[in-house]
């Protein structure tokens, strides 16, 4: 079936299987910043924004974004460069596997105007798993990015 949506501000028209997940379709366009990790919506590396809402693209059916505005890490890194700069500057990344998802989550947090409070940031990021940092530097990075 035909799917027509906006990806990082640009119109996209693709032919998809009705049961295709959003992550498959996004990566099929060449935007491979969004990853598939657990396939269960738990780890966060597949996170994207659909009409400003954070969504696990490994679970979301692509057909449901017809006419919608989808933003991935590539686009959000441009909309919120201070988030990327903060993750780099405050050691919020090590191996980088979780980083695309952390960028999306942090941008979602900032774009939603959520408060600059550590417990709130920590709670919001609970859906983004990291094996390297122990989370403290990620939280610190996001708090710093909320300054600007």
């Amino acid at each position, binding site marked *: 079936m035909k799917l027509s949506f906006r990806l990082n501000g640009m119109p996209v028209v693709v032919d998809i299987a009705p049961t295709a997940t959003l992550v498959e379709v996004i990566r099929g366009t060449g935007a491979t910043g969004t990853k598939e990790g657990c396939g269960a919506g738990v780890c966060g590396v597949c996170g994207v924004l659909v009409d400003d*809402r954070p969504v696990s693209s490994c*679970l979301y059916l692509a057909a449901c974004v*017809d006419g919608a505005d989808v933003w991935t890490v590539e686009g959000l890194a441009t909309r919120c460069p201070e988030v990327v700069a903060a993750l780099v500057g405050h050691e919020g990344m090590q191996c980088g596997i979780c980083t695309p998802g952390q960028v999306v989550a942090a941008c979602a947090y900032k774009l939603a105007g959520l408060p600059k409070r550590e417990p709130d940031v920590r709670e*919001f990021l609970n859906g983004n798993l990291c094996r390297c940092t122990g989370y403290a530097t990620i939280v610190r990075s996001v708090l710093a990015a909320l300054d600007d």
Partner: protein
Amino acid sequence: MTEFHAPTTVDEAVDRLGSGHAVLVGGSTSLTPLLRERLLEPDALVWLGRVPELWGITTVDGGDLIVGATATLADLVGSATVRAGQPMLWAAAGAVGNPRVRAVATVGGAVAHADPRQDLLPALLVADATLTVAGPDGRRTVRLRDGFYRGLLETGLGDDEVIVSVRLPAADGHAEAYERFTPGSREDFPTVAVAVRVGADGSATVGLGGVASRPLLVTGPGRDVAGTARDAAAPIDDERGSAAYKRAMVEVITRRVLERLTN
């Protein structure tokens, strides 16, 4: 190949359910894993996201809360009305998963999916929720407490029916709370989920999740109900704990919540 439909009315959705094996889709957070594992191979997916009648959360005269079937858990959490008027439901909704799940997971989907580990179901039982359901012969109301939950992933909903809304009677200032106990990660299913409402006379209504093939409802005097809840639980050994552990935790968590509510 499975077809995808996005009806714009309840009647259209009901019609779609009438041909072949058609499955309703809300946020797809519970459905997609079933599709991937080929546990479900439907002829059609019927997405309810474009049916305006299913959106929204409203309060009606008398204080009852009407939640549209495709209202999301995030809608519940973000609603000041729900937070003030149905704090137990509000807490249960906020306990689920992570922000990405809550952003798209629907209340109707949770009710219909009937996974006994879900946070919402014990709270809805305690709140004495009723459903408005649409089918080919019209609409009916179903009270969750009237045996709606029959077994694992099994409800009294017909294959040709669509949940339209969930109605919660006004909580009328009852002391109530929801607690999920999980030694696992924050976004895992609870090992034990306990929803409690206490009446002015000290009687307690307790909803339990994660400890049987369906969510359970137990009532009794406040001083006895934790033991009654423990005896009603029929948990299994799994990665979230042994049956004996879960049964013991039912009593501990229920007692803990009751103490919090009555102090």
